[in-house]
């Protein structure tokens, strides 16, 4: 059976224009891999929203990262002060990965 290793899966829902800033925070704590997931629509305390490619005004993206517990904790510490002002949705969960040395 293939051996798996525990790592943290970090998901951040963010307005698309702010993605480069969060990627920089991730790099600063030595997280070098991420994926961006296009989000079509959603809703929350401020009402519903829909992505449209024409204005891009309400574009949102999910940044997905896998990292060690230490790196994930460092990233959470770095972006915690931005959660309200950037209107981020941040979740961190446990996952099992193969080739754990890569994360």
């Amino acid at each position, binding site marked *: 059976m293939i051996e798996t290793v525990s790592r943290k899966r970090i998901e951040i829902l963010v*307005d698309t*224009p702010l993605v480069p800033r969060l990627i920089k925070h991730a790099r600063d704590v030595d997280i070098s891999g991420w994926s961006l997931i296009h989000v079509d629509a959603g809703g929350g305390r401020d009402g*519903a*929203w829909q*992505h*449209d490619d*024409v*204005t891009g005004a*309400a574009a949102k993206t999910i940044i997905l990262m896998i990292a060690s517990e230490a790196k994930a904790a460092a990233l959470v510490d770095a972006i915690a002060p931005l959660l309200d002002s950037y209107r981020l949705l941040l979740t961190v969960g446990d996952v099992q990965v193969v080739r754990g040395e890569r994360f």
Partner: protein
Amino acid sequence: MIVETLTSPVILFFVLGVFAALIKSDLAIPEAFAKAMSIYLMAAIGLKGGIEVAESGFTPDLAAAAVAGLGLSFLLPLLAFTLLTRIGKLGQIDAGAVAAHYGSVSVVTFVTAKEILTGQGLSPAGYMVAVLALMETPAIISGLLLARRGQPQRANAESSGLLHEVFANGSVVLLVGSFAIGLIAGKDGFEPVKPLFDTGFRGVLCLFLLDMGLIAARRLVQSKKLNARLVSLAIALPLINGTIGVAIGTFIGLDVASAAALGILAASASYIAVPAAMRMALPEADPGIYLSMSLGITFPFNIILGITLFSQLALMIG
């Protein structure tokens, strides 16, 4: 003229989009197609503007309109900021972000206005496309200065990211680039591509405005951030700004159609370049306020009524 405008297919398709969104119809324009139409319209309007300037040359009117456009874009946010803080009761940061939108311009409003005015024999000068491009960004600087007044300076990295967003914004690059292509190619160079960029223009604009009607009305329906004061200001600001624009255009000696176009540019509010820039530069500002005001109220107001009002005003005082 008013009936003629309101019954033109361009406006009626926009109204259809608004109606479809309000009755929660599942009507939708595929996103990639809508994006392609916006690229087509910006390229076409830039090309045509460049060709007209290539024909007419750089005139004193062009220089005067450019200076007026720059001045309006820099200064209109000051008035908007004052009204938004005093009447709208917005905080400094939200008021600065909204003010930037009302100093900048809406390309779609301009394209629609140019098409309607041209159909009525009031064709704005080609150089108004250059004025449109010039008016996109100064308001962003004014809005940021107003929002950040008395607060600590931001890091250089953030500023350089913002500058890149402002000046490398896709709509600005395409508009300025196609204007330059039109200027270089001239009328003869345009002939081979004319069937694509000229013949189908009005039909594509109809379909694009159908999509914009859907987007604007859905934004308005989904908004939870607007109150009566902000709704009133989203209508009052284009009326005030547009009147100032027409008056300045007439004062500096522009022809009636170009003065009307300057008024419509001043009345319009950005919902493409500025929201992205504000999200980067002022993440604390609430996008629910500035997007709902500019896209949900001011944009439909200008399309349905503003274009007619400002062209009538230009005819009256011109």
